[in-house]
């Protein structure tokens, strides 16, 4: 119990520090309160499939990777964009603005977002990935270096807080907050910002999620480490559109 409290206290501090570092620059300019999407979101380390820590510098440029966060069953995209991603002010589903803290890592180019389309919840699973990042200009939308949901052609800008560039979506994907440890080059997911849709997501896919992740596990927070891997390794069919 004492141990648990300590850990939680530690996490809180870590979270706070990360946040301060991440948004300090933006906060100086815009006084928008960060819109944390979940309370007590876990702090977890990103590891590769073999369990070794994922080094930020090892994440390839234009990576279209996946990891599960904050729940065991909820996918998030891990992307490395070409240029440093600056803090960006965006609006959530209620029109409330928040400042996305920008990219993380040595070149401030690593970003992460919930892989749940803000339009109609299309997502990425073992069988098919509907929502993907691509460097190349995709056929369906004419955009390159964007996150595209291939079901209804919503397009999001990963370098700008996943703001909507085109299509029927009305608000950005929820952002996963990342933290980089410059000493070890490790990456941590520490929280969420923006409009989280997990309640709706669970409702829509509960049957599949229970089957794939376990009947209780699917709705519990990840702890410790979470595995990140290229979507092409995770999903049988990472569809291009």
């Amino acid at each position: 119990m004492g141990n648990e409290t300590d850990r939680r206290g530690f996490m809180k501090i870590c979270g706070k520090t990360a946040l301060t570092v991440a948004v300090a620059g933006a906060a100086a300019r815009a006084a928008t309160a960060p819109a944390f999407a979940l309370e007590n979101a876990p702090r977890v380390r990103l590891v590769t499939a073999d369990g070794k820590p994922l080094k930020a510098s090892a994440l390839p440029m234009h990576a279209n990777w996946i990891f599960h966060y904050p729940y065991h069953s909820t996918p998030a995209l891990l992307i490395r964009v070409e240029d440093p991603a600056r803090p960006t002010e965006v609006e959530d589903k209620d029109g409330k603005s928040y400042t996305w803290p920008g990219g993380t890592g040595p070149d401030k180019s690593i970003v992460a977002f919930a892989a749940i389309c803000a339009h109609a919840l299309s997502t990425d699973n073992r069988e098919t990935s509907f929502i993907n990042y691509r460097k190349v200009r995709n056929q369906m939308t004419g955009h390159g270096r964007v996150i595209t949901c291939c079901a209804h052609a919503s397009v999001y800008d990963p370098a700008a807080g996943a703001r909507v560039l085109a299509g029927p979506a009305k608000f950005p994907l929820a952002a996963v907050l990342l933290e980089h440890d410059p000493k070890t080059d490790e990456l941590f997911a520490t929280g969420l910002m923006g409009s989280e849709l997990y309640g709706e997501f669970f409702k829509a896919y509960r049957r599949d999620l229970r089957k794939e992740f376990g009947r209780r596990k699917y709705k519990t927070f990840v702890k410790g480490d979470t595995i990140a891997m290229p979507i092409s390794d995770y999903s049988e069919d990472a569809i291009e559109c």
Partner: protein
Amino acid sequence: MTGKKKAAGLSRRDAIKGAAAGMAALGAAATSAQAATGKPVKVRPPSAFSRQAEIPGFGGARVVVIGGGWSGLEAARQLKHNKPDLDVVLIEKRAIFFSCPLSNLWLVDKLSLDALTHSYLDAARNNGYTWLHAAVVDVDRHKRVIYTDQGWLTYDFLIVSPGIDYDYSGIGVVDPGQAARLGSAYPAAFKPGSEHLSLKKKLAEFDGGVFLLTAPKGNYRCLPAPYERACMIAGYLKENDIDGKVILLDAHEKPPFYPDGIKKAFGDLYKNYIAHITGVEITGVDMGRKTVETNQGAVEFTDASIYPPIRGARILERLGIAGLETPGMFADIDPVSYQVHGDERVFVGGDARPMPFIKAGFAANFEAGHIARIITGRMDGKDAAPLHSPGMMCYVAVNAEPLQSIAFKISFGWIYDRGSGKKTFMQKAQAFPKRSRALGKANIQWGRGMFQEMFYSQS
């Protein structure tokens, strides 16, 4: 006589109820509190409908939506989303929702019936509006009272989304009795429910010969659907080794929606299974001889699904809002404001609209959000910008096994034309003609997402 008797027998309670309704109807977007101070006006409903519909009261302004298709469902949802205090009532006579979009996949067992059918109870509960399971009989637009087989109710604003009916006179079947027999024997299956179930049964029983399909003239519901259906049925024949073929009689010389992807599928997947004949004008159907008479000669068939031209749903006439002088008798509305000419409280959306853009689920769905914004905007004294859609996906399945689709991105709306200085209507379609399994999967996910939104989301 009976009518008089009943009217005289109206109880005091009914009279009070009636009076309250009359006030709400007359008050300009009045709340019931305001209405209670006004002078009662007696509503005299037809005797058979003298009962007030049993729906929960909200007390605020009420918007009623007639018709729970892709337009009406989304209008009700968006109204509630824009103004959570609004009393929104969706009137739909069907007991369950049955989707026309995606139904061609279900027809050949590539999708379960579960994927197409959904509950109005879920849609209403999750989105906070009321579903009145009733058939509209009449509307008194002067007093703003709707009469249904479950009783009457009043409205402050009304959206009518009744969809389409078939116009069998367009294929030479003028006699209404004959048209009804034809619709029963060879249903078009573009008004979902029993027509679709019948068509699927026909396929299951089909043991060879000619399965006839038709694509009518005009801006018919779901332009690519007859081609998609031809592909799916041909695929079914091929897969099940049935010695038959699809003959598709196409009213268009140059079909408005026949891009390379469909042409290619017809050619390299179904060469011996589909005969696509263009420029066919059907002049009559001989049901006894199972023959369609056309300008290119008679065509015999073993079984058929005959899609005649469409028209605005007949209830538009009953409500006095049909464009009687216009082709198809679609709704008589202003194409920008969606408002019925001469009635600022009534709007029409969905496939009953007269505008030239595509009559398809996704379009009706997007447009419904726009109409909802017009109405809630008006309540707040704000004007909505003219309709302009984002690029929206439209999928067409061309191969059943494995499922492969092609896609279109379609956008429509009013754009400013520099030349004339006026706003003009435009529709743009970009084709993705290369069939793929990825687009096939996206095709199914597209539907899942749309149903998720209309029925299950709470945002």
